[in-house]
């Protein structure tokens, strides 16, 4: 699986546009729901998706398969760009803190098939993240999906910074076990 992806990136690095089309078909459906979950608006999500794949084409020569799978390369990039987008939108508002429930649960207005897809979708996420104790799941969601920093999370949850860091670490370790067990 990963080898096919890495081969595609190598072909993209050599300027192969067909390889890019295959690469897009393979990874866009994985990163699009992630971007949409973070930015919440479908039009914004489409913009971010385009930016992310454009960068993948541009940076393909720099991809190093020993440093991670193409999937992790794309997911990391998609999450970063999506968070950049919500931060630039909210930069003016100093007090901006993504509302907990909204940040995690609110869906953009969308057509019925999308809403259905997302409902199904949310069920799956909950099963993966739900295996974590609530306190750990909460900090990972606030950081990874809502883009809050540790300081913002600590203020928000009224917990010491050290506790936030510990929960994140334990949560990631637990998530790693859950993902390994399910793969």
């Amino acid at each position, binding site marked *: 699986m990963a080898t096919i992806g890495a081969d595609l990136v190598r072909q993209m*690095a*050599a*300027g192969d*546009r067909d390889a890019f*089309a295959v690469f897009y*078909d393979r990874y*866009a*459906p*994985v*990163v*699009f*729901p*992630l971007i*949409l979950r973070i930015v919440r608006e479908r039009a914004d999500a*489409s913009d971010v*998706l*385009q930016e992310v794949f*454009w960068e993948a*084409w*541009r940076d393909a*020569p*720099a991809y190093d398969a020993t*440093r*991670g*799978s193409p*999937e*992790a390369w*794309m*997911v*990391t990039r*998609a*999450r*970063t760009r999506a968070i950049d987008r919500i931060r630039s939108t909210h*930069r*003016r508002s*100093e007090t901006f803190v993504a509302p907990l429930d909204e940040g995690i649960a609110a869906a953009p207005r969308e057509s019925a098939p999308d809403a259905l*897809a997302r409902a*199904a*979708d949310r069920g*799956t*996420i909950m099963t*993966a993240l739900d295996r974590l104790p609530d306190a750990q799941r909460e900090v*990972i969601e*606030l*950081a*990874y999906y809502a*883009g*809050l*920093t*540790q*300081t913002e999370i600590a203020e928000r949850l009224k917990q010491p910074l050290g506790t*936030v*860091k510990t929960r*994140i*670490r334990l949560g*990631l*370790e637990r*998530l*790693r076990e859950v*993902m390994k067990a399910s793969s």
Partner: protein
Amino acid sequence: MNHEPYDRLAATYAVGALDGQERVDFERHLADGCDVCEATLRDSAETLAALARSRPPMIPPPAVKEELLRRIGTAPARRDASRPRPLVWAVGTIAATVAVAALTGAYVATRYEARLGQMARESAALHARVQREEAALREQLAVYRIAADLLRDPQVQVVTLRGLGPSPEATGRVIWHPANGGYVFVANLPAAPSGKAYALWTIGDAAPQPAGVFQVDASGRGSHRIPPVEGGKPVKVFAVTLEVEVGVPKPEGPTVLASAK
């Protein structure tokens, strides 16, 4: 050295939540080369990718793919038509050169192999250099963009720093937002001696607070992100001192730049 504190920092960094001085320190730790943290970050990225993959896939609007293929199809070589990117274009050209060199090598057989090998090595070295330069330029551009954005905010102040003591000709400006922090830009500072770096301090009513360390380039210029002050306490003076590279909790070295009270 005890590595334990870095394990927690690495996890927090992996979910993009590390901020302030800890982020500066951790990035320095990574830049020094830490296989343990590199492995933790790789592993975390794969876990988060697996989490993304565990959700049902969603087909994005077809217009996105059409637009991307159009951009790539009309872009000459690897050049981005909408933004000038001469370095990216150069990277594409070099990649193409390497590819052509490889094909030709197979065709003309062993006679030219040694020479082609050398060309490929030279191309690879050039490729790496162009990529480093591009990364540095992108980073600088990002800083300028943020500074320009900050300047549009009416709450932002611009504070002048004047050279003192060993470097009277040095100059600096701080772009400062009371709640979000800001940037310092300096010029005419000599490069810090080996093992030393410039340290920025924010001074309010209490003791000077460390706000990170930075270096200047060969032309004496440098910039540095200043994290917000805890609790949004007002800053009365910004000062730069010369300190050991790893940073110090309170100023010890000579003050090279400071704002007026």
